[in-house]
């Protein structure tokens, strides 16, 4: 047994000593592999497809319904198509965004555990740092594309199905269509920062749990928990440190006196969560002892 191990080590050393084998692939090449792998996943394709076709269906169903006035902008869905886009944004932040962020990111590391392929990809002579960067970047790019698809589909559905009527603002004012369109697009754009925070959280949990199911569901559960906490009174500063708070920052764009303080705070909070999660994830992956299949 000892002899066999020694022999194997020796032969590896000899192999790695060869000139061709020590040349590492560029991180861009690793990124291309990872993007190809995600693009081949059925779940990723269905997710993007869902982001495109679900919003028009929801808006179409809304047109025949009593307005859901318990959610912000719900009471205005028949008044302006922009209100539909904002209602769906308000609804999405309650649970859809964490799920959207985690579906690919939560699986991207743990999937290698699930399939037992860590050894295979690591023996393709890409370093762990390169692999980590490529996988994180793949998840970020995919989530940004998914968010963009959802936002574009929602806004276009609202405008085409309900129309470009002036949007009721949050100070009782009416916002003309020409101003409302960029504001609604900006409101959707404010979801980018917390979305990246959830992506990093899902990446971290994917590395730590080594289980694709846990990697996907844990961020969603944490998102729920943060959402629940944020409805309580008396949290004040702690509430602003929750990732989910950033999803509501768009309210300030629709008041007569616009305020963007919450958007700036949310971006800083999301940057903090992202940096910490990515760092811990990297350290955990680098230190991990990968010996099994």
């Amino acid at each position: 047994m000892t002899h066999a191990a020694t022999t194997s080590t020796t032969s590896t050393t000899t192999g790695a000593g060869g000139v061709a084998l020590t040349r590492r692939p560029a991180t861009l090449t690793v990124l291309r592999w990872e993007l190809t792998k995600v693009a081949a996943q059925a779940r990723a394709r269905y997710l993007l497809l869902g982001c495109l076709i679900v919003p028009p269906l929801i808006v179409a169903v809304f047109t025949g319904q009593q307005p859901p006035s318990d959610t912000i902008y719900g009471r205005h869905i028949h008044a302006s198509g922009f209100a539909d886009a904002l209602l769906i944004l308000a609804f999405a932040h309650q649970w859809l965004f964490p799920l959207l962020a985690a579906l690919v990111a939560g699986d991207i590391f743990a999937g290698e555990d699930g399939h037992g392929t860590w050894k295979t990809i690591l023996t393709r002579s890409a370093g762990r740092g390169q692999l980590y960067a490529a996988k994180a970047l793949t998840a970020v790019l995919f989530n940004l594309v998914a968010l963009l698809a959802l936002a574009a589909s929602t806004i276009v559905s609202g405008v085409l199905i309900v129309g470009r009527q002036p949007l009721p603002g949050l100070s009782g004012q009416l916002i003309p269509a020409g101003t409302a369109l960029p504001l609604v697009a900006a409101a959707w754009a404010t979801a980018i920062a917390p979305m990246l925070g959830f992506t990093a959280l899902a990446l971290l949990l994917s590395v730590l749990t080594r289980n694709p199911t846990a990697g996907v569901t844990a961020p969603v559960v944490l998102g729920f928990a943060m959402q629940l906490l944020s409805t309580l009174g008396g949290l004040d500063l702690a509430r602003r440190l929750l990732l989910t708070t950033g999803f509501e920052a768009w309210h300030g764009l629709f008041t007569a006196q616009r305020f963007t303080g919450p958007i700036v705070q949310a971006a800083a909070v999301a940057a903090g969560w992202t940096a910490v999660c990515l760092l811990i994830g990297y350290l955990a992956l680098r230190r991990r002892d990968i010996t099994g299949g």
Partner: protein
Amino acid sequence: MTRIRSHVTAPAAAVLAVAAVFAATAGRGGEDITSARLERAIGPTFANLYVQRSAILGRTVTAAAIDAHAACDRGGPKVPDSGPGANWICMIAFTDDTGQHQEGKFEVTANADATYVAGGPSKLVGPATITDTHGNDVPNPAFEFDGAFDPDS
């Protein structure tokens, strides 16, 4: 053994760190939802919506002429006038579209995210649905409305 321990302690330490930051910041930094912020938001918002309501009914007024002012209280004298809840009451004083001074009790739900929902008395603002000058039934914008305010203002 070391592997097992680091596999458990690292996430546990992370969870504890998050909990510690959360506990250290909870309740600090001042209350987001206050009566002053609600009052500053609700008065002008109601005036704007009352103008829209009057326009639907074919009467022309301006928000400045309505001159609405709100005084908000949460849950009676024993409860501090801050924090989210469905037990806010705002008394709104304004001049109606016939020039009469009016004052009405609005039931307000203030949410932790610095938005609110306010509902007015039908006696002052009319029913949920009103009939416009063309004879169509349309929603009354002043009957129940959403609004938002700056938690840092």
